[in-house]
C-alpha cells in the first residue's frame, strides 16, 4: 500500500466541492482511502486520524489544498490525481434558464396564467378540495368529475353563490363561456342566445339545432346533473339565469334539464318569470329540445327550419325490434319521450324485453374506458350484435361531434353500419354537431349516409323516423 500526501498552496475550493472530489477519488479502482480538503486544523487532524504522515503537510494552512491518497499502486495514485483535477474543474452543463417546476394544483396552475376559470376532471373524491381552492382564490369552477358527494356540492355552490362565483358541476360535461367550449362542446357562432343546462348533451343538441337554424350562442353555462335536485335546490341554475339576464350580449335565455323535482321546477320557473328577457324552459319529459329550440327561434323572430337530414330509403328493412344505442344520456331520454307514445314503455337496460334505448355513457359501461363519445368500441360491438340478432329490425344511435369528442367517428362506424344495412336492419343516426365542429359535420353525415344510415341533426326527428320504420314493418 502506498500513501501520498500533497499540498497545493493557494488552491481554494469550497468544502462541498471538496467532498464531491473525495467521493470521486474513492471511486478510483485501487484507491483505499482519500482525503481532499483545505488544510485547516480540523482537516489536518483528520489526516492524522486516517493514519497519513502529517509531515508532508506541515506549514500548510486553510488556504492550501490538501490531497492525501492511499492506494495499492503508483498507477492508482496517478489516476486519483487525474480524477481529482477532473472533479475540481468539471462544470456540469447548466440546464439553461431558470425553469419553474410545473404547478401541482389547479389553484397553482391558475396563478401561472391568471385564470378566471378552473376546469377539474380529477377523480370525484378529490374534486372538492381542488374546487374549493379555486373558489377561495376567486375563480369560477367547472367540475367535469362525477361522484362528488352532494354535501360537498352544496358547500361549494353555497360558497360560490356568496362570492359571485359560478360552480358548474359536479358532473358537468359541457359549457361555453364567451365562445370558448369547455368539456364536450360544439363550435358555435357567438350570438344572442344564452343557455343554462343541467345536461351536457341537452346543451349540445340545443346548440346543434340553433346552429343549423343560424342562431348563435355566446354562453352555455352548465350546472351539473344534480343542480336541480331538491338538496342542491338549483343554486347554480339560478345564479346563471340572473347573470345571463344582466348580460348585455344575451337576448334570449333557454334553460335545459331533465324534469326536476316539483318544488325546484317551481323555483326555476319563478326565477325565469322574474327575468327581463324571454326565458324558454325546456324540461325534457314535458317538451322536446326541438320544441324548445323552436320557441327560442320564435323569440328571435326566426322560423324553425327543417333541420338538416341525409335520408336513406330503408322502408324494406327486416321487421323487428328497435334498439337505441346512445352515448348521450339526455339524447336517450328525449328519444324515449318521443317514441313511447307509439311504442309504449321502452327498456333502458340491455336485457329489458321489447324495444330498448341504452345509454352507453352510463357508469356501468364506462369502467376502465373512455366515454363512448370518445371510445366507440362498446357501441360498435353492440351494433354488430344487433345486426346479427334476427329479432332486431331498426337501430337508432347518436353520434356526438364537437371539442372533446372522437376526432373522426363516422369512418369507425361506417363498416358496421354497412354490414347491418346489408343484413336488412334499418340504421338511423342522430348526428349532434354544428357546422364549425372540428370533425366536419357534413362530411361525417355523408360517410354515415353512404354506409346506408339515414342521418338527422334533430334527435327528435331521428327518433320519429326510427319509430316510423319500426311501426310500418310489423312482423307477422
Amino acid at each position: 500500500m502506498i500513501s501520498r500526501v500533497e499540498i497545493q498552496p493557494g488552491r481554494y475550493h469550497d468544502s462541498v466541492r471538496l467532498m464531491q472530489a473525495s467521493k470521486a477519488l474513492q471511486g478510483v479502482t485501487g484507491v483505499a482511502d482519500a482525503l481532499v480538503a483545505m488544510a485547516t486544523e480540523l482537516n489536518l487532524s483528520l489526516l492524522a486520524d486516517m493514519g497519513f504522515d502529517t509531515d508532508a503537510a506541515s506549514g500548510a494552512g486553510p488556504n492550501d489544498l490538501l490531497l492525501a491518497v492511499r492506494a495499492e499502486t503508483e498507477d492508482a495514485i496517478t489516476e486519483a490525481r487525474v480524477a481529482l483535477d477532473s472533479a475540481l474543474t468539471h462544470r456540469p452543463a447548466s440546464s439553461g434558464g431558470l425553469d419553474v417546476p410545473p404547478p401541482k394544483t389547479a389553484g397553482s396552475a391558475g396563478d401561472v396564467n391568471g385564470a378566471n376559470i378552473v376546469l377539474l376532471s380529477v377523480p370525484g373524491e378529490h374534486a372538492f378540495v381542488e374546487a374549493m381552492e379555486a373558489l377561495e382564490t376567486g375563480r369560477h369552477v367547472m367540475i367535469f368529475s362525477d361522484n362528488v358527494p352532494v354535501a360537498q356540492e352544496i358547500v361549494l355552490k353555497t360558497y360560490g353563490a356568496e362570492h359571485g362565483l359560478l360552480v358548474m358541476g359536479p358532473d358537468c360535461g359541457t359549457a361555453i363561456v364567451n365562445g370558448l367550449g369547455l368539456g364536450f362542446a360544439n363550435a358555435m357562432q357567438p350570438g344572442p342566445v344564452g343557455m343554462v343546462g343541467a345536461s351536457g348533451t341537452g346543451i349540445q343538441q340545443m346548440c346543434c339545432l340553433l346552429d343549423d337554424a343560424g342562431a348563435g350562442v355566446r354562453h352555455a353555462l352548465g350546472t351539473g346533473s344534480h343542480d336541480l335536485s331538491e338538496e342542491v335546490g338549483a343554486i347554480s341554475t339560478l345564479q346563471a339565469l340572473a347573470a345571463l339576464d344582466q348580460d348585455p350580449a344575451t337576448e334570449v335565455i333557454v334553460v335545459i334539464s331533465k324534469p326536476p323535482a316539483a318544488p325546484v321546477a317551481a323555483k326555476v320557473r319563478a326565477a325565469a318569470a322574474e327575468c327581463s328577457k324571454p326565458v324558454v324552459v325546456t324540461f325534457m319529459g314535458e317538451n322536446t329540445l326541438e320544441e324548445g329550440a323552436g320557441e327560442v327561434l320564435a323569440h328571435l323572430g326566426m322560423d324553425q327550419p327543417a333541420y338538416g337530414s341525409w335520408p336513406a330509403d330503408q322502408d324494406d328493412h327486416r321487421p323487428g325490434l328497435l334498439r337505441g344505442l346512445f352515448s348521450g344520456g339526455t339524447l336517450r331520454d328525449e328519444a324515449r319521450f318521443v317514441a313511447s307514445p307509439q311504442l309504449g314503455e321502452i327498456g333502458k337496460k340491455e336485457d329489458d324485453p321489447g324495444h330498448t334505448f341504452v345509454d352507453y355513457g352510463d357508469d356501468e359501461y364506462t369502467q376502465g374506458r373512455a366515454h363512448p363519445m370518445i371510445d366507440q368500441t362498446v357501441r360498435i360491438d353492440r351494433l354488430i350484435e344487433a345486426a346479427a340478432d334476427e329479432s332486431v329490425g331498426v337501430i337508432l344511435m347518436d353520434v356526438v361531434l364537437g371539442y372533446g369528442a372522437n376526432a373522426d367517428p363516422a369512418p369507425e362506424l361506417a363498416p358496421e353500419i354497412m354490414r347491418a344495412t346489408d343484413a336488412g336492419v334499418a340504421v338511423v343516426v342522430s348526428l349532434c354537431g354544428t357546422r364549425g365542429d372540428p370533425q366536419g359535420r357534413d362530411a361525417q353525415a355523408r360517410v354515415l349516409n353512404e354506409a346506408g344510415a339515414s342521418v338527422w341533426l334533430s334527435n327528435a326527428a331521428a327518433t320519429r323516423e326510427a319509430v316510423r320504420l319500426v311501426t310500418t314493418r310489423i312482423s307477422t
Partner: protein
Amino acid sequence: MTNLSNLLDTDPVVATAGTDMLADSIEQQGAAVSRADWQPPRAAAPALASLVADGRMPEANATAIERMLAVRPQLVDVQVARDVFAGMTDRTFLHAGPPLTWERASGPMRGAIIGAMLYEGLANDPDDAAAKAAAGEVELSPCHHHGAVGPMAGVTSPSMPVAVVADGAGDGISYSTLNEGLGKVLRYGAFAPEVIERLQWMDQVLGPVLGAVLRHRGPIDLQSLIAQALQMGDDGHNRNRAVTSLFLREIGAALVDGADAPTDQRLDVFTFIDGNDHFMLNLVMAAGKLGSDAAAGVPASSLVTVMARNGTDFGVRLSGTGDQWFTAPAPPVDGLYLGAFTEADASPDIGDSTITETVGLGGFAMAAAPAIVGFVGGTAAGAVRRTQAMYEITLAEHHAYQIPMLEFRGTPTGIDAARVVRTGVLPQINTGVAGKVPGTGMVGAGLVEAPIECFVDGINALAATVE
C-alpha cells in the same frame, strides 16, 4: 344574487387539473391553458376534505403565517442555561427533535449525552456516563419544549452558555446554544477531551465575553443580518459564512473596547468565531424558533411550526394541533462525505436545524446559495428548482429574506402541511451528517426530504380537531 360579471364579460382564461384531453380541446380552439401536474394525495384525502369543508383553515393559516413573519428577532444576551430554563435541574439535558429515551437514542445523541455528562462532571468516563444515562440518571427533554433549539444532537446541559433572542416586535424569547465549530464537536456526538475542553472554554470565556459585548453595544438585529447574508450566498443552514462575517463586523468595535475581559480572551473569541463558518447557524435557528413559536396555537391552522429530528425520529408539529408531535423514522441523508467516511458511517437525520426550513431558509433558500449547489446535482439551476418547488407548499413569500437570482422574490415561507399532503411535494432540507458511532463527530453534509407520514398524521389529527 351577485352577477357573474367577470365570468361573462371577459375572455375566459382557463387552468385545468385532470385529464389532458380537456386542456387539449381548449388549445384546439386557439386559447391558452395552464395545466396542473396533478397527482392524487397519497393519504388523508378524507381529512383534507373535512378541513376544507370546515372552512376555517385559510383564515387560520393567514393568521399563523402573519404571526411568524411579524417577529423581529434580536440577539440581546448570552446567559447560562440553568439561569434561563425554568425547572432545569443539574441533571436536565435538553436535546434536539421530538421526545426521546436513552434506549432509543442514536449514536450521535448518546455520544453528545455522554459528552455533556463528562462536561458537567456527572460521570468519570464515557462508560460510566453511558451506564448512568441508561439507569435514568439524566432527565431528557426536547429543546423545543423550552423555547429553544439545538443543532444536530442539540444537547444543552445546565452549565452551557445560551444565546438569548428576543422579539423586537413582541414579547417572545428563544434560546440556542453557541456553535462549537465543525468536526469533532459535541453536537455531532463527539466527547473526546478536546471537545470537553472547548465546551469549558465556551462557558468560561466565549459566553461571558459575548454577553458583555451585547450588553455594551445593544441588541443585534438578526433578521437584517440573515437578509443580507442571503444576498451574499448563504442559505442559513448549510452555509453561514456570510452571516458569520457580518456578525463579526457587528460586534467588532464592542469586542475591542466594550468587553471587560483580558485582551487574549477577546482575541480568542474573535479567532474562534472567525474560524467557524457555522458560528451563526445557532443564532439563525434561534431567530427561526422565535417566529415559529409566535405562529403556534392557532386553531385549525395547518402551518408547520416545528420540524425536528433526534437521530431516531423525525417530528413535526402544526399550529392547530398544539403540543402534539407527529413522528416517523428519521430518514437517511443523501450526502457528500468528509475524507474516507461513507454513508455506511452516517447516522439518520438529526437536529433542530430544520427550524431554518420551517421559516423559509435552508433548503427553501437554496437558490440564494450557489456556492453549495454541489448538494443538488451541481448546477445553479438545480438549486433554483429546489427553491421554486417549495412555493407550492408554503403560505407566504418572506418580506425580508429575498433571493437575487429570482429577481429578489421572497423565500417560500411557512409550510402548509395540507399542501404537503395534497401535492406530495416534500420539504427539502439541507443538513449536516453525524457519524453513527458515538464519539465520531461530523462525517458529511447533504440533503434530506421530510417524511410524508408526519404530515399525513398531522393533517388527520388537525381534521379531528374540527370535526
